[in-house]
């Protein structure tokens, strides 16, 4: 298969290092701007919810972290798959960089979810909720990936073995998602009232979307920073790195 030129350029560590260095600050600035604006609009401008009062404001952080966590796993598996098939070391570097960020966001989703659950559901942790279980299993998948990597001393082997785990995991993610979803409908336990109320009004929707965009930029900013660090770690002693260091820009 013939691949376009930019694809090959993305396989070159110095090119990607510089690209990440150039893009990173812009993403970071956009993320900070959007997050500050979204937080202000969400916490100050948006009206309280008629049903939940002030507690509902968790929707300006909780769904976003959950979504970033899932996106991070898909990116991890996609990058790992590319790395495995075309033997691209940089794709593996992307996968490695995405794992801890995704795990942190998934963890944040669980924490913010239980902070919201305490006043609304009356419990920090509801075993019967499928989404909590899904997030928990997703966190385990991230941890499994990182533990497997850490067990190998040879980085190249760790890359290729953990890539297989990532791909197997991402195939399983929808299965796990639907199984926990169905589990709850099969489970004749106490049902939690869902808040499928009227769709959000625009003064709530705008900060919500601002936060979604802000966290997305934030994720890619963090990813690029980790990627730069990962590239430096992998290319130790390479000539372009020494030249860059000599220029005082590394």
């Amino acid at each position, binding site marked *: 298969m013939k691949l376009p030129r930019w694809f090959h350029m993305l396989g070159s560590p110095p090119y990607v290092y510089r690209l990440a260095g150039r893009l990173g600050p812009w993403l970071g600035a956009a993320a900070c701007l959007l997050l500050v604006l979204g937080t202000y609009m969400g916490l100050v401008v948006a009206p309280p919810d008629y049903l939940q009062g002030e507690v509902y404001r968790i929707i300006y952080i909780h769904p976003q972290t959950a979504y970033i966590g899932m996106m991070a796993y898909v990116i991890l598996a996609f990058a790992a798959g590319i790395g495995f098939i075309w033997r691209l070391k940089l794709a593996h570097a992307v996968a490695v960089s995405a794992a801890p960020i995704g795990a942190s966001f998934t963890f944040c989703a669980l924490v913010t979810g239980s902070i919201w659950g305490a006043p609304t559901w009356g419990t920090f942790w509801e075993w019967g909720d499928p989404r909590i*279980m899904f997030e928990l299993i997703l966190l385990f998948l991230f*941890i*499994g990936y990182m533990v497997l990597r850490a067990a190998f001393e040879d980085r190249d082997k760790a890359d*290729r073995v953990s890539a*297989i785990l990532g791909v*197997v*995991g991402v195939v399983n993610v929808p299965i796990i998602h639907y*199984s926990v979803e169905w589990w709850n409908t099969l489970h004749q336990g106490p049902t939690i009232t869902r808040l499928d109320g009227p769709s959000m009004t625009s003064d709530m929707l705008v900060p919500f979307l601002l936060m979604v965009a802000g966290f997305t930029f934030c994720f890619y900013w963090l990813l690029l920073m980790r990627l730069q660090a990962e590239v430096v770690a992998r290319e130790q002693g390479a000539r372009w790195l020494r030249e860059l260091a000599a220029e005082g820009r590394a």
Partner: protein
Amino acid sequence: MTGFIVILERDLKLAFRRVSELANPLLFFVIVTSLFPLALSPDRLLLQAVGAGVLWVAALLSSLLALEGLFRADVEDGSMEQLMLSPVPLSIIVLAKITAHWIVSGVPLIALVPVVALSFELPAQALWVMAAALLLATPTLSVLVSIGAALTVSLKSGGSIIGLLVLPLCSPLLIFGARATDLAAQGEAVAGPLYLLGALAVFSVSLGPLAAAAALKVGLE
């Protein structure tokens, strides 16, 4: 196909000559399930309520025990490298080994579980459903375990992390299996979860060996 049968026969022969290793996971299963009444309480109603879940978790854990012999012995004495050189595709060889693993660890479990389930006073109709659910779930379990074993085959002590890798992926099996058993105990229709277990079995048996073979290749490079 001949390659598949030859490997299957060889692995079964090897397994049945080491009966103690064969019995370990089953003993483990019996011991774990008998620990639950000690830890919880010997209350009949409670044990009846948690019985299905306990049996499923114990079955899951005991199948993790049997995985050391899946690839490790062959890798250590070099026969795996010889097998990889053969014209038979590695995924077929892996599938044969998974089948052998399933016959050795899954089938005895299916035979044993109804007996243990009786001690938890699960109703008779639930026993059949549980056996059927195990029959459908254990192939998937063997495939997942083989992927875990293949991923960690080049590690000195892979056993400790296989659980971390495989158990989260097993959660759908646990959900559908335990639910089918529960539904049967309550006298309700069980076809839904059983169909899903069957679908998972077909899916994992057709794709899983490819993943395990890829992992083995990387591990032995």
